[in-house]
C-alpha cells in the first residue's frame, strides 16, 4: 500500500465538498458517531437527503459562512491505497490557500459544473495546478444529473478543456463525468451514463501510477542535523541526518556538499538499526562520509555527477501570500530546504492575471498575486528548476518583521 495525496480544486457551488463527502461516504470511511452527528445536523439537501458537504467543513467561522476558507486534510483508505485529501478553497481571494494545498499534491481533481462548462475559475485552477507542477490531473465534470446525463454536453466540455490544458501545459489529464450529489461515477460506476465506459473516480485514484523514477531524478539530500553522540565509544561518530529529496544515494557514491563544493564519498548509510546500501527519494537517513569535511545544517548533499545550479541571483515564479504587499526595498528571509538566508526581490518582471493568463505590468505585488520575479539572496542557493525537480526548486519567503510566511517561490533559473 502506498500514499496518494490529492487536492480538490473547485468552488462550493461546483459541489466540491459534496464530492469529497461522497467519496468518504460511499467508500465507508465515515464512522458511526460522525455519521450520527451528520444525520442529526439541520443541514439537508433539497430532497431531504443528508448534506455530505458537512463532512468537510471544520471551523466555526466556516460553518457560519457556509464556505471553506482554509485547507482541510481528510484521510481515508481502501485496500489499495492510503489517501490524503487537501480540501482547498476555490475562490480567488483564497488563491494562497490553494497554492498551499497544491504544493504537496501528487494529483489534482479539477471540478467543473457541467451546466457552466469551462469558466474563469477553471482557467485559474488549471494554471495553479500547472504552476505548482502537480503531475496528474483528473477533471470531474460534475452535476451531470442536472443535464440528464447528456453525452454531447460532456464532450463539449472535454474538448474545451483540452484546449485549455494545452495552453497551460498540463499533461496527463483524465476526464470523468460525475454527479457527486447522486453518486454517479464517484465510487460506484454510474448506470445513468452507459456512453461512458471509463472507470469511476475512486477506481482511477486507486490505480493511477504515482511512482517516481528515482533513477531519472538527481540525488539531493538537504542536511537537517548533524548526529554527534560525543561519547567515549562513539568519539569519532559524525552522521549527516536528512531526508532524500530526490533521486537515490548509494554507498561509495561520490557526493558534493553545496554551496561549499567539497567532495567526498558515502561510506555508510544508516537508518536507525539498519544499514541500507541505498537511500531513495523520501527516506530519512543518516549519511556518513569517508572524509572529514565541514558539513552542517543548511548544506545540500548532491551526486557529484549531477549538480544543481548554485546562484545568488535567481529568476522565479512568486505567489504572494500576505496582506501587506511585496516591498522590493525590504530585506526578507528565504527558506530553501534547511537553509535560511536573507534576500530581496530585486525586480518584478511581470504578473499574471490568473483568470485570463494575460501578463500584467503594474508594480504592486499584492495578496494572491502571482508573477515572475528576480530574487537576490545573501548566501547562494543550490537549487534545481522547480518544473524539473519540485523537491529542490520550491522555497518560501518569510517577513522578518512578523515571522509570517509571505510568499511561495518556484525557482526557475540562475541569472547571469
Amino acid at each position, binding site marked *: *500500500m*502506498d*500514499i496518494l495525496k490529492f487536492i480538490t480544486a473547485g468552488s462550493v457551488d461546483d459541489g466540491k465538498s459534496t464530492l469529497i463527502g461522497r467519496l468518504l461516504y460511499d467508500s465507508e470511511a465515515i*464512522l*458511526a*458517531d460522525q455519521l450520527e452527528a451528520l444525520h442529526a445536523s439541520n443541514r439537508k439537501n433539497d430532497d431531504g437527503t443528508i448534506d455530505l458537504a458537512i463532512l468537510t467543513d*471544520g*471551523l*466555526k*467561522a466556516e460553518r457560519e459562512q457556509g464556505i471553506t476558507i*482554509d*485547507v*482541510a*486534510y*481528510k*484521510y481515508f*483508505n481502501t485496500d489499495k*491505497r*492510503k489517501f*490524503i485529501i487537501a480540501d482547498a478553497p476555490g475562490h480567488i481571494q483564497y488563491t*494562497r490557500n490553494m497554492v498551499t494545498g497544491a504544493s*504537496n499534491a501528487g494529483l489534482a481533481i479539477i471540478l467543473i459544473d457541467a451546466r457552466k462548462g469551462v469558466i474563469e475559475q477553471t482557467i485559474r485552477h488549471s494554471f495553479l495546478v500547472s504552476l505548482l507542477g502537480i503531475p496528474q490531473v483528473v477533471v470531474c465534470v460534475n452535476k451531470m444529473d442536472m443535464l440528464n446525463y447528456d453525452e454531447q454536453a460532456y464532450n463539449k466540455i472535454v474538448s474545451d478543456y483540452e484546449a485549455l490544458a494545452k495552453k497551460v501545459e498540463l499533461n496527463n489529464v483524465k476526464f470523468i463525468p460525475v454527479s457527486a450529489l447522486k453518486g454517479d461515477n464517484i465510487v460506484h460506476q454510474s448506470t445513468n451514463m452507459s456512453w461512458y465506459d471509463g472507470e469511476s473516480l475512486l477506481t482511477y485514484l486507486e490505480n493511477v501510477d504515482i*511512482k*517516481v*523514477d*528515482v*533513477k531519472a531524478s538527481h540525488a539531493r539530500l538537504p542536511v*537537517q*542535523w548533524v*548526529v*554527534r*553522540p560525543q*561519547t567515549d565509544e562513539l568519539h569519532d*561518530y559524525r552522521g549527516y*541526518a*536528512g*531526508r532524500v529529496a530526490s533521486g*537515490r544515494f548509494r554507498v561509495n557514491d561520490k557526493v558534493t556538499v553545496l554551496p561549499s563544493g567539497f567532495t567526498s564519498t558515502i561510506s555508510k548509510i544508516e537508518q*536507525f538499526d539498519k544499514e541500507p546500501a541505498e537511500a*531513495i*527519494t*523520501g*527516506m*530519512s537517513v543518516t549519511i556518513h562520509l569517508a572524509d572529514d569535511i565541514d558539513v552542517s*545544517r543548511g548544506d545540500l548533499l548532491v551526486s557529484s555527477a549531477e549538480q544543481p545550479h548554485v546562484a545568488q541571483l535567481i529568476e522565479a515564479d512568486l505567489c504572494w*501570500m500576505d496582506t501587506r504587499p511585496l516591498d522590493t526595498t525590504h530585506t526578507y*528571509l528565504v*527558506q*530553501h530546504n*534547511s537553509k535560511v538566508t536573507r534576500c530581496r526581490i530585486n525586480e518584478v518582471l511581470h504578473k499574471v492575471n490568473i483568470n485570463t493568463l494575460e501578463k500584467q505590468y503594474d508594480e504592486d505585488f499584492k495578496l494572491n498575486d502571482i508573477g515572475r520575479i528576480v530574487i537576490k539572496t545573501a548566501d547562494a542557493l543550490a537549487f534545481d528548476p522547480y518544473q524539473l525537480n*519540485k*523537491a529542490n526548486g*520550491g522555497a*518560501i519567503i*518569510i517577513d*522578518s518583521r512578523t*515571522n*509570517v*510566511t509571505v510568499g*511561495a517561490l518556484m525557482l526557475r533559473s540562475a541569472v547571469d
Partner: protein
Amino acid sequence: MSTNNHLDYLDELEAEAIYILREVAGQFEKPALLFSGGKDSITLVRLAEKAFRPGKFPFPLVHIDTGHNFVETIDYRDRMIERLGEKLIIGHVQDSINEGKVVEQKGKNASRNALQTVTLLDTIAKHQFDACIGGARRDEEKARAKERIFSVRDEFGQWDPKRQRPELWNLYNGKIHKGENVRVFPISNWTELDVWNYIRREKIELPSIYFAHERDCITRNGQLMAASPFLNMDEEDVIERRNVRFRTVGDMTCTAAVESYAYEIDDIINEISESKISERGARMDDKVSEAAMEDRKKGGYF
C-alpha cells in the same frame, strides 16, 4: 522496506515524522516532547529514537500530570525513561491547584482534563520551551484537520485558526517572536489505524490498559468509565465488573473504556478496522459541543 523504488505507506509516514522531528531540532533553541503515556506519544518517542540515535534526544520529555492517572501509565512512563536514559520533566496539575491558579471542578462530571492547559502553559513558560512536540493527528477531529504541522501559539498559548501560516511543500517556518511557541505535530498525517499498524510493525510495548482486562466500571452518559477514587461517584452509580480496554489514555475522569476482548495487538487492529466509533468518540470532553475542540485549542489546549 521499499520495493520498486517506492516507499510503503508506513515507511513514508515514518520518514516524514523523522524529518519533522529533525526540523524541530535544527530550528529551535529549547524544544520539548510532550509525553502523555498514550500510544501516540509513545510512537513519537520511537520516532525520536530513529531520528537521533546514537545521539541523545535534543529535547527533554515533558509529562503534564493531572494526578488522576492510571497506575499502569505511570509505571510504563518510568520504565521507558529508564530504558531511554533521557530527561523527564513533570508538570503537576496539583501544583497549579495548590498555587490557586486553577480551581478544581465540582460535581459528578468533574475532571482535571481542562485544568492541565494551565499547567502546560506554566511549564512551557518556566522552562522557556519554544517548541512543544505533540502526538495529535488531523484525523482525530474536525478542528485538527486544518491545523498546521508547525502551529504557532501566541504568548497566551492561543491558536488562531484565521492567522495560520501557509505551510508549503515540506518547508516548515519555525520563526517566532519571544514569548511565542510552536506546537509541532509530526504524526499529523497518520490515522489511528496507521499508528496501530506501526506499533505492531515496530513491536513497540504499550501500557497494559490498551489491552482487554477485567475492571470495575460505572456507566456515565452512556459511556463506560473506570471506577476510581478520582471519579465523583454517588449512590446512582452502579459498579460492575466488565471486560474492557481503553482506546486512548488520558486522565481517568475523562477517558472512557470500551467493552473488549482484544488481548493482542492483532485483535485490536481487527477491532478498530471493524469499529464504528471513532477514537475521540470515547473522550467525554469532546461531546460537550460540536465546536468543543476548537474552543479548547484556542485557549491553549494541546
